[in-house]
């Protein structure tokens, strides 16, 4: 029997909702089947904690006396984008420190702000009649900053590649250090716990969905950049490589650095580990079946990252149960595997969100608009003005 969002929310507010994590749901669907699971369970919570470069935070510092129209801004020597109104900036996660290089960047500034640390603000300006100040140097923290909210253009990727390296030298990538001659393979998904792999055709996750973001409540703001729904899929609906993605928004001042961390990938750059958990309402048997997905059912593609091309040919396919076993076979070779996304923290996120919902602290929202289920990703080609 089908349930509505309203019915589920009523059960949540009465403290009667049955909430399982995606791992627990996988077990239940395996033992009792999707039909019984749908009758019993109201919400399944998911979680993921992986590095996402396309992340950042909008900050409004408040106005100085006399006022300044900031044109160049640094936070702890990390340049941030100030090409907005006078005291609005966007801290890009991958921006690197002028003094420390990739050891410290925008992602680390975001982490420091969340942790309540003091951050040095430096700005220069050209000065106008209404904003006369041309230079400012001061200290800020999350309590003195007027507003700060995370806005991540692309997070929560629905599946991701498995990366390896066929060349004869070590390569340094956003997929970690890849050793020569297929010396290792890395992967980066929470698999059966991952939000969009538990709602593979976006029936419940859409614009306006309330989520767990970095330890606080946040929202799905839009489809993510490079959102690519039209891809080949496994029988259960999960894509066989990177597919959908989400743009996320949430109040930085409420966040907790256990669930959001600055990172640096050696000889690659800075990135941000972002903790995301999305509740999935079990509206009917179909949603129970989707959330019953197991690592063995989720397949991804293996790519050779020594190919310096935007379209690499997949070397093969592999499921997450095999990836998690510690080694896979590529051709005849046994290749050790390593994750980049923390399964331990992903699990903690799913459990935290489960506790919030069980304790009636978090209600579900019906999407205002579904994510696009059509469309493709356009490449960037070098062309003339007339050739467009």
């Amino acid at each position: 029997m089908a349930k509505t969002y309203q019915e589920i929310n009523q059960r949540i507010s009465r403290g009667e909702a049955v909430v399982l994590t995606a791992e627990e749901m996988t077990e239940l669907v395996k033992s009792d089947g999707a039909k019984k699971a749908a009758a019993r369970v109201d919400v399944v919570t998911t979680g993921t904690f992986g590095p996402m470069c396309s992340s950042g935070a909008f900050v409004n510092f408040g106005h100085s006396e006399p006022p300044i129209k900031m044109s160049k801004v640094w936070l702890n020597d990390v340049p941030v984008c100030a090409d907005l109104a006078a005291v609005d900036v966007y801290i890009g996660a991958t921006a690197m420190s002028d003094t420390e290089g990739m050891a410290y960047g925008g992602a680390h500034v975001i982490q420091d702000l969340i942790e309540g640390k003091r951050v040095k603000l430096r700005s220069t300006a050209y000065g106008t009649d209404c904003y006369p100040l041309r230079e400012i140097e001061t200290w800020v923290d999350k309590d003195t900053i007027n507003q700060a909210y995370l806005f991540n253009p692309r997070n929560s990727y629905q599946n991701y590649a498995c990366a390896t390296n066929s060349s004869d030298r070590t390569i340094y990538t956003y997929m970690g250090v890849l050793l020569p001659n297929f010396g290792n393979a890395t992967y980066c998904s929470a698999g059966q716990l991952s939000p969009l792999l538990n709602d593979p055709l976006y029936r419940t996750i859409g614009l306006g969905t309330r989520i767990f973001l970095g330890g606080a409540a946040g929202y799905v703001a839009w489809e993510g950049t490079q959102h690519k729904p039209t891809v080949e899929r496994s029988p259960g609906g999960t894509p066989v490589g990177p597919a959908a993605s989400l743009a996320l928004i949430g109040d930085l001042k409420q966040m907790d650095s256990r669930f959001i961390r600055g990172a640096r990938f050696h000889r690659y750059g800075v990135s941000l580990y972002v903790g995301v958990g999305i509740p999935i309402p079990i509206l009917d048997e179909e949603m129970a079946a989707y959330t019953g997905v197991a690592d063995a059912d989720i397949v991804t593609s293996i790519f050779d990252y020594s190919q310096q091309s935007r379209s690499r040919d997949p070397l093969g396919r592999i499921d997450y149960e095999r990836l998690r076993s510690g080694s896979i076979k590529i051709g005849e070779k046994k290749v050790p595997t390593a994750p980049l996304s923390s399964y331990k923290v992903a699990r903690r996120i799913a459990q935290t969100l489960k506790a919030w919902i069980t304790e009636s602290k978090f209600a579900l929202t019906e999407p205002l608009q579904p994510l696009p289920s059509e469309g493709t990703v356009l490449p960037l080609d070098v062309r003339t003005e007339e050739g467009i």
Partner: protein
Amino acid sequence: MAKKRLVLTFPPEVVERPVVSLMVKEYDVITNILRAEIHEGEIGRMLVELEGEGKKIKAGVEHLKVMGVQVEEAITDIELDEELCISCGACTAVCLPRALKVQAPDWELGLDKDRCILCGFCVDACPLQLIKVKF
């Protein structure tokens, strides 16, 4: 007599050559292999202690470098900040002796110091910069 502890890294094409035995034979350096992780066709790493006359050790090390082996001063210990570690597993990708592991059921990063060959590769591989070496 001098002693020196070194980490030797063998690129895949060097792994199959008898570079260490040549050093023992030609340069009269006592070579004690403390730990090793070497497989045909893969990158290999070895922690060695060299013993002999200072200039012979120097010549032996020069020989290793000419043969394509990367030679680095061995560290004495690695330190992982377990409290801040998120157990992502990125460091395990470069840990050939599998001293660093994340696995079921708890998926928490574990460091088995008995298996560690003190190569220090995990230091660069940790995205949170939580692994430090001691010399």
